[in-house]
């Protein structure tokens, strides 16, 4: 059996809902097109498990990981979350090179590099899939399109007023339909009052909502890749995000979208998207950006080959 071209240490591999799990799985999949890949995850070493394409190797509990027998160390190691414990493991393994997506503790060895997923020409990116059928049919729960979509950063509660950003947008644009996705429920607001609620059961439901929105305001974008922003851009929906450093801000800047620090900037950003010509230009730019960086799996494999030094 050929030795692995890369070893992936997936501390968050099994936490499927996290962006770290999504990203490391996407990278491991791309790396597997270049050569064999070994995936190490926390857990009892006596219980190896199959997970789709990969046979997972367990490395013990997160607080005391052990390098598994039979897995060579003289290769490229990709870590999703670099912790003090994983750093100890890497230090003992002496890999050819070590790359990580995020670091929780630190500082760590300078020889270990961040693998950039977003921003700049050298970012390796990930593949963010979407279903194009979502563009064809709107969400069945609402009888309108061209709404302002707000992805909330909190868990909703019955009777609780919507996030402040929604209140500002609904007050500033009384004629606009504002749809808020919060805790797997989409609530439609217009003229400062609630008009109805529908559940968002599947990713396809979310994609439909993203695809038919006039603009998407993501109040709590993911810290690793801001996946929902990418999905919105792939459907040609401009994004508006809080003015905080992170991948979402990069997406907004690269796609011609907007960032806001206060209600005035938020209303100005939403107002710009109400003009067809401006919205159309931003929509096209966003779609081009998202397709080229996150929509082409073949390009991701090529970039991964460059990272791993594979021919």
């Amino acid at each position, binding site marked *: 059996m050929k030795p692995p071209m890369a070893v992936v240490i997936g501390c968050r591999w099994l936490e499927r809902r996290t962006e770290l799990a999504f990203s490391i799985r996407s990278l491991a999949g791309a790396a597997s097109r270049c050569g064999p890949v070994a995936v190490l995850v926390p857990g009892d070493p006596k219980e190896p498990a199959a997970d789709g394409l990969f046979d997972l190797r367990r490395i013990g509990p997160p607080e005391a990981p052990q390098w598994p027998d039979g897995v060579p160390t003289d290769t490229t190691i990709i870590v999703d979350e670099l912790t003090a414990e994983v750093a100890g493991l890497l230090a003992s393994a002496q890999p050819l090179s070590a790359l990580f997506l995020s670091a929780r503790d630190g500082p760590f060895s300078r020889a270990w590099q961040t693998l950039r997923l977003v921003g700049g020409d050298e970012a390796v990116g990930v593949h963010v899939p979407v279903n194009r059928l979502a563009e064809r049919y709107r969400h069945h729960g609402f009888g309108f399109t061209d709404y302002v979509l707000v992805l909330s950063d909190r868990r909703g509660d019955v009777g609780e*007023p*919507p996030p*402040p*950003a929604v*209140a*500002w947008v*609904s*007050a*500033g*644009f*009384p*004629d606009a339909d504002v749809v808020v996705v919060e805790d797997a429920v989409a609530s439609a*607001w*217009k*003229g*400062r*009052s*609630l*008009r109805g609620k529908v559940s968002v059961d599947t990713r396809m439901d979310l994609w439909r909502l993203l695809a038919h929105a006039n603009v998407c305001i993501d109040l709590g974008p993911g810290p690793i890749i801001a996946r929902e922003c990418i999905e919105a851009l792939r459907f040609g929906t401009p994004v508006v995000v809080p003015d905080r450093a992170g991948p979402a801000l990069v997406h907004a800047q690269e796609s011609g979208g907007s960032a806001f*620090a*206060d*209600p*005035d*900037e*938020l*209303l100005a950003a939403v107002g710009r998207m109400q003009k067809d010509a401006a919205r159309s230009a931003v929509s096209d730019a966003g779609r081009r950006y998202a397709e080229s960086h996150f929509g082409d799996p073949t390009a991701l494999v090529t970039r991964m080959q460059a990272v791993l030094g594979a021919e």
Partner: protein
Amino acid sequence: MEPMVRDAQDAIAEMPEVAPRMLRQPADAPPAVGHVGTSAPVVSLRRILSDRPAGSGRSFRGWAARVSGRSDRRLLLALAGATDAMATHCDLLADRLAAQEAVTADVADVYGKEIALLRAELVHLRRSEAALREAGA
């Protein structure tokens, strides 16, 4: 600076950034009230009244003939006329109410929007001012 010598506009500057309040019920203009004149009884009454002078007057007279006594017939005619006038007046009121509700909804929308934009701008100015003060300090 001592509170007593602070400028009055500082009171505005210290307002918390409270988001606009949402409404419990939609504030849209309700559907317009329909015309009484288009209701079946009034349409029927007007048809009979209009038939009277135009034709032989047989139908209204025939209807009124069932009522005994001249004074009763006069009263019936006056009642029909008054009903017709009230229906016309109700329709005019319904038109005015619809127009008034449309104006109210428009004004509420416009002022609500203007106030929200002004408040947002105020928040922005406050932040800018605070940033300038910090930079200057």
